[in-house]
C-alpha cells in the first residue's frame, strides 16, 4: 500500500503538477480575494429538499458534463493522437434522442427514462462509431473526420425533434439534472463519480490502458504485437460516444428541455482544453484520465471565479484565454527544461557549498 502511494506521487505527480498548481493557484487567489467564496451552506431548494449550495458546489456541479466528456476525450486523444471536435453536436443529437423517447411514451416512469437513456447511448455510440470508422479505417485525422459531424450534427438534432425545442417535465428528470430527494449532493456530481469509477474498473479489468497507449505511441509496433489498432481506435470513439450520451442526458435534464442549438455549445473546445491542462499530450500516447478530470474542474473554477468577480458572461472568454496561456506557457517543454536546468544548477551550487563547508 505504501509502495502504491509512493508510486502514485512519484510517477503521477509529474504529469499532474500543472493542473494541481492551477487548482491551488485558483484556491489561493479566491482566498485572498474573498474567503466567503468557499462557504458552503445547506438550503432548501424549490422542491423542498435540503441541498448543499455555494460556489464550490456550483463549480463541482457545473463541470459535470465537461468532466465526463474530458474522460472520453482523453481516451480518443491517447489512441488516435487527435481530438473529437463534434462532441457538443453529438451531445445535442443524444439529448434529442433522449427527449424523443420521453415524448413518445405516454407517461414518464423510471423505465421510460432508462429506455430513453439507453436509446441516447445507442445513438451516440453509432455517431461515435461513424467518427471512429473514418479515423481508424480510412485513416483520416480525428479533427478533420469529426469536422463533418461538427458541421451538421446540430442539424441532425434539429431534425430528430422536427425543429421544435420540446420540454420534458418529470420529477425523475429533475432528479437527474438537480437533486435526488434526500441526497444533498447534486446528482450530476454523483454521475461523474460513477463514470470515473467505471473507468477505473475498466482499466483494472481490461488491458484498455496498455493497448490504447501502445496504439497511440507506436501504431505499427502495436499491430505487429497482435493489437488490433483499428478496433482500439474505434473503441475509443465508441466509449467517447457513451460519455457524450451521459453528458447530453445531464444537459437536457438540467434544463428540462432540449435546445439543439445551445445544448453544450462550444463544449468541445473546453473538453480538449481539459485534456491538455491535465498534462496529456494532444499528440497521443501516454495519458492520465485523472489529469483531464482535474483539468475540467480548473476550467469551471476559473469560470465561476470570474463570475464571482462580476465579469460579464460574454467577456469571460477573454480572461479564460489569458489564464490558459499562462498555464500552457508554464507547462511548455521549453520553459520546463529551462526550469529544470535552473533547479539542478541551484542544487549543484548548494552541494558545492555544503561540500566546501564540510572541508
Amino acid at each position: 500500500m505504501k509502495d502504491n502511494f509512493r508510486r502514485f506521487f512519484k510517477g503521477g505527480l509529474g504529469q499532474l503538477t500543472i493542473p494541481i498548481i492551477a487548482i491551488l493557484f485558483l484556491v489561493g487567489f479566491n482566498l485572498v480575494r474573498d474567503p466567503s467564496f468557499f462557504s458552503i451552506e445547506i438550503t432548501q431548494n424549490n422542491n423542498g429538499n435540503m441541498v448543499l449550495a455555494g460556489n464550490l458546489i456550483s463549480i463541482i456541479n457545473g463541470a459535470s458534463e465537461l468532466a465526463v466528456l474530458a474522460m472520453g476525450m482523453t481516451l480518443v486523444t491517447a489512441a488516435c493522437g487527435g481530438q473529437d471536435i463534434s462532441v457538443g453536436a453529438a451531445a445535442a443529437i443524444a439529448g434529442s434522442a433522449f427527449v424523443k423517447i420521453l415524448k413518445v411514451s405516454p407517461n414518464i416512469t423510471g423505465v421510460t427514462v432508462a429506455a430513453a437513456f439507453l436509446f441516447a447511448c445507442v445513438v451516440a455510440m453509432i455517431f461515435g462509431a461513424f467518427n471512429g470508422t473514418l479515423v481508424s479505417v480510412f485513416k483520416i485525422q480525428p479533427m478533420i473526420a469529426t469536422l463533418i459531424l461538427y458541421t451538421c450534427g446540430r442539424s441532425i438534432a434539429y431534425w430528430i425533434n422536427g425543429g421544435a425545442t420540446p420540454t420534458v417535465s418529470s420529477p425523475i428528470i429533475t432528479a437527474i439534472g438537480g437533486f435526488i430527494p434526500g441526497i444533498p449532493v447534486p446528482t450530476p456530481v454523483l454521475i461523474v463519480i460513477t463514470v470515473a469509477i467505471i473507468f477505473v474498473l475498466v482499466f483494472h479489468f481490461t488491458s484498455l490502458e496498455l493497448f490504447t497507449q501502445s496504439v497511440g505511441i507506436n501504431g505499427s509496433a502495436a499491430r505487429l504485437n497482435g493489437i488490433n489498432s483499428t478496433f482500439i481506435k474505434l473503441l475509443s470513439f465508441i466509449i467517447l460516444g457513451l460519455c457524450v450520451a451521459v453528458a447530453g442526458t445531464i444537459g437536457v435534464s438540467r434544463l428540462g428541455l432540449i435546445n439543439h442549438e445551445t445544448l453544450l455549445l462550444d463544449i468541445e473546445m473546453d473538453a480538449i482544453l481539459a485534456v491538455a491542462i491535465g498534462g496529456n499530450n494532444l499528440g497521443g500516447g501516454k495519458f492520465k484520465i485523472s489529469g483531464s478530470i482535474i483539468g475540467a474542474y480548473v476550467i469551471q473554477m476559473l469560470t465561476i471565479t470570474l463570475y464571482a468577480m462580476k465579469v460579464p458572461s460574454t467577456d469571460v472568454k477573454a480572461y479564460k484565454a489569458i489564464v490558459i496561456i499562462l498555464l500552457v506557457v508554464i507547462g511548455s517543454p521549453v520553459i520546463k527544461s529551462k526550469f529544470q536546468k535552473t533547479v539542478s544548477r541551484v542544487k549543484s551550487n548548494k552541494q558545492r557549498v555544503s561540500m566546501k563547508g564540510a572541508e
Partner: protein
Amino acid sequence: MQEVELLQMRHINKVFPGVKALSDVDFTLRKGEIHALMGENGAGKSTLIKILTGVYGMDGGEITVEGMNVSIHSPQDAQNKGISTVYQEITLCPNLTVAENMFIGRGEGALVFHRDNENRANEILKKLGIPARASQQLGSCSLAVQQMVAIARAVDMECKVLILDEPTSSLDDKEVNMLFDLMRDLKKQGVGIIFVTHFLEQVYEVCDRITVLRNGELVGEYLTEELPQVELVAKMIGKELDELSNLGETEEKKVENKEIFYEAESLSSNEAMPFDFCIHKGEVNGFTGLLGSGRSESVRAIFGADKVNGGNVKIKGEDVKITKPIDAMKHGIGYLAEDRKRDGIIAELSVRENIILALQVMKGFFKPISRSEAEAFADEYIKVLNIKTASRETPVGSLSGGNQQKVILARWLLTHPDYLILDEPTRGIDVGTKLEIQKLVLKLAEDGVSVTFISSEVEEMLRTCSRLIVMRDRHIVGELTGSDLNQAQVMKTIAGGEAVNEG
C-alpha cells in the same frame, strides 16, 4: 601526402541528464582522407557527429575548421561552414521534388529558380548515375535512390567535410560500390570524409584512418593498414576476442530430422511472391539475400505482418490460417521486426510494459496481467538478458539500441514461442550484444524452439544457422546445408553464378 588538418575537435564533452555521453574526446580530420569513426552503440559516435552538425550543443571543448575556431549552432550553421551530413535515416522531404530536396535550405536570396535548379540537379544526378529525375516527387523514389539523392545534395554543396552516418545500411552491393567510387572521387578533390558504419569490410575497403570511441571516451586514432580487423574489434568492444572465435568453433551443426513444426506451401502476401518453406523443431535456419531480395517480406508473410493473400500453412501437420499477427502469435510464433524503432519498441512506455505487451495481447483484452506479476516478469528478463536499464519503469526509448533490442527479445521470450522469427536482431547494435543474441539463439534451439534468423552479415548467419535459404529478386534461389554452408557458396548462390537445385 597532404597532411593538412581540416577539422579538429578538442576535448569535447557532452552530458545528458544522468549520462556522460562524451568525455574529453579528440578527433582530427585531414584534407583528402576518408576517416572511419568506429565504436559500439552508445560509444558516442552519433553524439559526436550531432555536435559537429549543430544538432546538439557541447558542454565543453573546441572545434576548429581549417585552423579557425568555430562554434556551430544549427545544422544550417554547419552547412554554411562547409560541413554536410548524410544520415542513416533519410532526412529529406518526400512531398518535394528531387531537385527541391537538393537545393532547399541553401544559398542566398529569397527566390527559388525551379528551372535552373532542375537542370543543375539533372546534371548532377546524371554524373553520379542516380536513377531519378529532378522534377520527380521524392516520395515516388525507392529508399536507396532517396539516400543517393541525399548524398548528391551533400556532394553538390562543395563541402569541406562530408559526414556519412551509416549511409550504406539501405543500399545493395552495387549501390555501395557506386557510393565508394563517389567517396574516392571526392577524396581526390580534397574533401575530408567522416564515415560511420557497422560493416568492418567497408572500413577496410575505403578508409585511410580509423578513430575508435568506447563508452564516450577516445580509444585512439589509427592508420587503417596498421590495424588488423581483429584488433579493431577488440578495441571497439574492449574485451578479448576469444568469445567470438569460441562461438565460431561450436560449428557442429546437427541437422537432426526432428518433426516439422511449420510448413508453408506457395505462401504469398501483398509484399512477398509465393514461396514454399518449412522449419523443423529446434532448427535454426536463415533467410539470406541482398536487401530487397524479399527475405524480410517472406518472413513477414509467415507471421502475417503484411496482408497474406494465398497459400497453405500447416503447423505440426495441421492446417491453420494465419492472416494477421495475432493468428501467428496464437500458434506460438513470435516475430522480432527489422526496424526496431518503427515496428518494435513503444518508446514512451516502461521496460515493464514493453516486456509484457505480447503476452498480454495473447492472454486477451479482458485478462490483464496484474501489476505484481508484470513486475516479476520484467525483473526476471532484465536479469536473464542482462538488460541495462535504470529500473523496470524507465521508458524504453531512453535505453541504448542494444538494450532496446533485448527488451523486445524479452517480450517474445515471455510468450514462450515454439517458433521465433528474428529479422536483423543484431543490426545497429554493439558487438558484445550481438554475441549475446547469437548465443541466445543457439540456446533457444537447444531447448527445442525453431528459429529463423536473418542478418545482413553472412558470417553471423553461418555461425548460427544450420540451413540457409537464399533469395534473389523475390524468389528462393537455393537452400544450403552442411558442407555448402560457407561464405563462398553463399555468395555464389546470391549472385546466381550457378544453377542450384531447388527443394
